[in-house]
């Protein structure tokens, strides 16, 4: 209600605008300027002014200098800024601020014309742009180096050496190996890393002739895992030993899957359990049942929330990004090694930036902190 009566009052004033426009009452604002809002899709214009006094001001807009001004919004003089988001791209607008001081309305001088433009770059995201380019460059360069056959050093990851032992144990005991590739789909990066480790493990089972089963929860992972195991058996010259039901699909639901897999574990008592990929609460059901069934367990996940369970119940756990490093270390595949080196380089850069930032803070300059502000 308050707004409508105010706009009627404003319209009445505007009809008399030419005489009142330059009434000399002291307007609480000065130096009004309007410009296209940077880094936007051409849908807003920003107004800025210096506050001389306080109290509300009305933002008036028109498409011609002396034409019909309409009310587009209210602001406080002290705000000194106003964003008009109701503009059309490319149309020239004129702005003025109307304020009521001592009974009569005082209009500031008109500013314009200004048009909103669709901008091609978000200035505030320069830092993310640099970071993205650096990351692409690092991965591109290191992968190129790796492809040219240059030897890239990656340290031994304890959990990985245990894989050969674990498969060996299963072969001696003539018992099954379970490989659980996590419960997320292919859009989850950890599942993709798990598939590379599955490739390595199924190469071993092909060579040793050990029985392996890969129960799946996600249909896309199910078909990708079957291709991966088939590929591994072909590459180690044992295509005949690959059986379709080595890779099975149980159900899509998290807990029905956990129930089915634990039931299988209790029935078939595997010698070795691999739980590598993305897991949630069902991780402890799988790990505890596997331990109770007497299996050697190797887990690996970047889901930090599940790491405590795996660390406490498994013999070896790939912590966080060791999972990604493992798929690179195992396959010795130049491309994966290259990206691990790229990640290490990025970590080194970040640690350097952090150290520099902390040192500069000691000298009261927070330039680094301001540079890293993301919006």
């Amino acid at each position, binding site marked *: 209600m308050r707004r409508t009566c105010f706009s009627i009052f404003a319209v009445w004033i505007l009809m008399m605008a030419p005489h009142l426009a330059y009434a000399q009452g002291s307007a609480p604002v000065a130096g009004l300027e309007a410009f296209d809002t940077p*880094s936007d*899709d*051409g849908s807003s214009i920003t107004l800025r002014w210096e506050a001389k006094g306080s109290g509300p001001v009305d933002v008036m807009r028109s498409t011609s200098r002396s034409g019909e001004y309409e009310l587009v919004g209210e602001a406080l003089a002290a705000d000194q800024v106003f964003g008009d988001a109701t503009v059309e*791209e490319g149309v020239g607008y004129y702005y003025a601020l109307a304020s009521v001081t001592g009974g009569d309305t005082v209009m500031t001088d008109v500013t314009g014309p200004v048009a909103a433009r*669709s*901008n*091609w*770059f*978000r200035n505030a*995201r320069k830092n*993310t*742009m640099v970071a993205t380019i650096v*990351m*692409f460059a690092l*991965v*591109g360069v290191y*992968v190129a180096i790796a492809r040219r056959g240059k030897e890239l050093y990656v340290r031994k990851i304890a959990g990985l050496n245990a894989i050969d032992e674990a498969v060996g144990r299963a072969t001696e005991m003539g018992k099954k190996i379970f490989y659980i590739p996590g419960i997320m789909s*292919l859009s989850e*990066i950890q*599942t*993709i890393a798990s*598939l*590379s480790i599955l490739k390595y493990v199924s190469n071993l089972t092909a060579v040793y002739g050990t029985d392996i089963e890969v129960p799946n929860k*996600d*249909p*896309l992972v*199910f*078909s*990708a895992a079957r*291709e*991966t195991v088939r*590929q591994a058996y072909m590459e180690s010259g044992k295509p005949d030993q690959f059986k379709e039901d080595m890779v*099975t*699909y149980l*159900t*899509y639901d*998290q*807990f*029905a899957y*956990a129930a089915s897999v634990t039931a299988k574990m209790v029935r078939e008592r595997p010698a070795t359990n691999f739980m590598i990929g993305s897991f949630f609460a069902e991780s*402890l*059901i799988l*790990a*505890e049942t596997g*331990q*109770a069934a007497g299996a050697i367990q190797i887990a690996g996940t*970047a889901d*930090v929330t599940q790491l405590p369970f795996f660390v*406490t*119940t498994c013999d070896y756990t790939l912590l*966080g*990004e060791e*999972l*990604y490093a493992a798929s690179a270390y195992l396959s010795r595949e130049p*491309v*994966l090694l290259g*990206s691990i080196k790229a*990640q290490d380089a*990025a*970590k080194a850069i970040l640690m350097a930036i952090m150290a520099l930032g902390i040192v500069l803070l000691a000298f009261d300059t927070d330039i680094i902190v301001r540079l890293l502000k993301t919006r």
Partner: protein
Amino acid sequence: MRRTIPLVLTFLVGMYPIFAFFVPHATVSGVNQWLDKALVIVAAFALPLGVVNLVGMNLEKIKQRRAGWPYAIVLLAGLAVMAYFGVIGVIKGDTGFHPTFEVLFESMVSPLQATMFSLLAFYVASAAYRAFRARNVEATILLVAAIIVMMGRIPFGDMLTGGRMTPLSEWIMNKPNAAAQRGIIIGAALGAASMSIRVILGIERTYLGKSRD
């Protein structure tokens, strides 16, 4: 040809959200918003993808009378009933859930899933008893931190220590725990970003699998 189209598509569709992230231009962000809404629909189709597989496998199990085939009938019956009440409303043209669909969820799907989870309480207890051994320095630190935080989470802790347990537990969560979690997050985020780049640039292809032809 059948290999390159998917890889080119992954590159284009993968780069677009990154490009639109930096470019606010009206047309660019317009296409970006359309892509977001389009993926809502593609993801909707992807979610029940497992149905074809599950039905196929269980029919196979029933036909060959393999071990546990009666359970396969139970599974297919559950699937059919729930899907029927899920879809019948839409086919008949009215909107919202079919009342039976909600009752079935309420009295069957919900308790089954909740109870499955509650088993964890037992597994946690037995893991705490059997797996929690101070085998070495690291395991001891893990043990001590767990006990402090557990005492800090329950009113008993404060009662026994005159209110000092909750602040101590909060200190552990806010300082050492937050620092370690941050280290893991940064490392894992860089790992995921690098994996994303490999998938976009077509270096990482395992998810596509090798085509048989």
